[in-house]
């Protein structure tokens, strides 16, 4: 081999060693460093913004004789039973004048159950009865607020039965029969109220 040949062989070997160093030492180090960098960045807490949807809630009409529908944003639920609960929780929140709520103050939604027939069982706290002001009209408006709010906003639910503290009850205040699921009735809704929109109560 000539001197020139040795030189070429040396260059090739040096180049090969350099490539091997880059391939097996430098690149893995860089990769590992990147991994460490990523690991060191503190991850932000997941921000779950509640999805909202529009629902029709019911309050006392101007003449006090019926209900009127008012559109409000409520939390959107993934399943009908979850949606029904969100609607009721929004319905049970206190309201400012000129709106008047039909739900006694302090009433809580304990749970909502749904049967395959589309009957919802709404379990409420005892305030729905113990703090009710009485009178058949007031009681009818309270009951149909709950029934209409659920059935109008969750179409797969056809009727609602109200339970109090997990038990079936006769009435809220001595008038309206609560022993069975109640279907919505349009006659208790003032369909001419300005915000009632396109509500169709079966």
């Amino acid at each position, binding site marked *: 081999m000539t001197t020139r040949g040795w030189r070429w062989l040396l260059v090739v070997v040096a180049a090969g060693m350099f490539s091997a160093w880059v391939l097996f030492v430098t690149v893995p180090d860089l990769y590992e460093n990147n991994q460490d960098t990523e690991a060191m960045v503190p991850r932000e807490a997941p921000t779950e913004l509640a999805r909202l949807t529009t629902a029709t809630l019911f309050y006392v009409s101007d003449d006090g004789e019926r209900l009127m529908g008012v559109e409000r944003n409520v939390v959107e639920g993934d399943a009908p039973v979850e949606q029904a609960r969100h609607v009721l929780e929004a319905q049970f929140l206190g309201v400012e004048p000129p709106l008047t709520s039909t739900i006694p103050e302090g009433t809580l939604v304990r749970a909502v159950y749904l049967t395959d027939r589309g009957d919802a069982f709404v379990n409420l706290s005892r305030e729905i009865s113990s703090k009710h002001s009485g009178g*058949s009209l007031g009681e009818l408006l309270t009951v149909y607020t709950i029934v209409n709010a659920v059935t109008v906003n969750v179409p797969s639910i056809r009727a609602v039965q109200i339970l109090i503290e997990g038990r079936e009850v006769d009435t809220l*205040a001595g*008038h309206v029969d609560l022993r069975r699921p109640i279907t919505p009735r349009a006659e208790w809704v003032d369909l001419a109220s300005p915000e009632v929109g396109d509500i169709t109560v079966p």
Partner: protein
Amino acid sequence: MVGERLTHRVRWPLLLVLCLLGTVLQATDRPTQAQQQSLTVMMATGHQTVAVAQVNNRQMVALSDLASVFGLSVQEDSLADGLTVAYRDEVVVLPATQNLASVGGRIVTLPSPPVRTSSGWYVPIEFLDRVLGLVINTSIERRQQSGLVIVGDLRVPTVDVGYTVGNGRVQIIFEVTPPAPYTIEEDQQHLLVKFEADALDLSLPEAGSGSLVTSIQRGPEPSWLTINLGSEYASFQSALGNSVTGTSTLLVSVLSESVTSEITAASTPSQPSVNETTPPLTELTAPTVVRTIVLDPGHGGDDHGAVGPSGVLEKQVTLQVAERLQRAIESRLGLRVVMTRNDDRMVRLDERAAIANNNKADLFISLHANAALTPLPAGAGVSYLSLDDASGTSREGSDNRSVSVLGGGLRNIEAVSWEMAQISHIDQSAMFAAIVDAQLRTLVDVRPSRSQAAPLRVLTGANMPAVLVELGFLSNPNEEQKLTSGSFRETLVQALFESVVGFRVHVEQPISPEVGNAFWEEP
């Protein structure tokens, strides 16, 4: 290749010729004048008539007529081979060869394409409710049977009129859908039934003549009816019952002199008071069907019911009115009255119905005072049980079963759940509610809505006609004061007493159910 080119060359002229031929053929269509009918278009500003023509065996209306009624502009569009109908900014495209319309990009199907006749373009009558409503952005309801086209939110209830004749009275039945408030005015020869509506979609029985009622016809106003009275007319009664199906039944009983005298005798004297001299029972009509009435003063004991702003308790008002009513009925009608409570004690709702059932009562009246969530509502009211909510399956709550009997064989019995006992009495309950409503209206302020059906717990187990009467609103400060006054309570008692009398007359002197072809003729 040549063939393809020829086909290509020929295709468009051929289509053109076919279109022209079609147009020419269409132009030869003639609306059949002999089969013309008309539509009555009702708007807030009045009503107009639009002729209906039979074109190609289909009911159609002239676009020119619709243009004048609704303010449309109609233009032929030769490029689109059709018509454009414009109303303000809205445009409808009607292809001449397709049974559809394009309304702002929305496709609406029609039974047939528009047809060109010698007198202009015609469209199917379905164009009105399917297309025109979208164009003018107002609801249009077309009623096939009556030929009414209702534009906008007009109140045009359907009113089907029927009648029964017999026992010195004509009972005229108005089935009103949806229910509409009414008043009745009387003069010497007519009864004017005035409905609170813009017009009536009216179905009248065939004309005839009789000695009590000679005819029924449209009144001088679109929402009025006129009952023309005969020579034997003496008085009338009316009652309204709302059904759960969204139809109210108005009953107008036109009475002869003899029936009027009987009713007057039964309800005399008219001022109930425990201090009055009780009339001899022999002067009163002896009860034959209504013998026992159960009065149910609502609430009691720990259950105060509603409480007025100044502290008046519902349980006290109901008991005091019930006691007065009991005395009036017992002393003046000689009927047996049973109270579900005579003092301030709690009575369960089931027990109240059981008291009525065990005493074989013929009528159950539950007395309450109302309360609302705002102080505004006022007035007395009456309710009966709503069937759907009570039974879940409406009248199917009763069940026919076969049972074995002694000696062999089977016998069909109607089995009704105890707690559903009211189901078989709903119609009578609705009728009594209508009578109470009418009587209350003559004496005290009542709520705007008439007697209504509601899922009322206390009524479900009552095995007889049963209503719940709300005497007034304790939540209304003025009515709270009135409900504490003796004179107002007497007035309420008077209205309820008259209602019982009216119900007895209704039950004990039933109208012959037959509907004769001989209009208004006594059978």
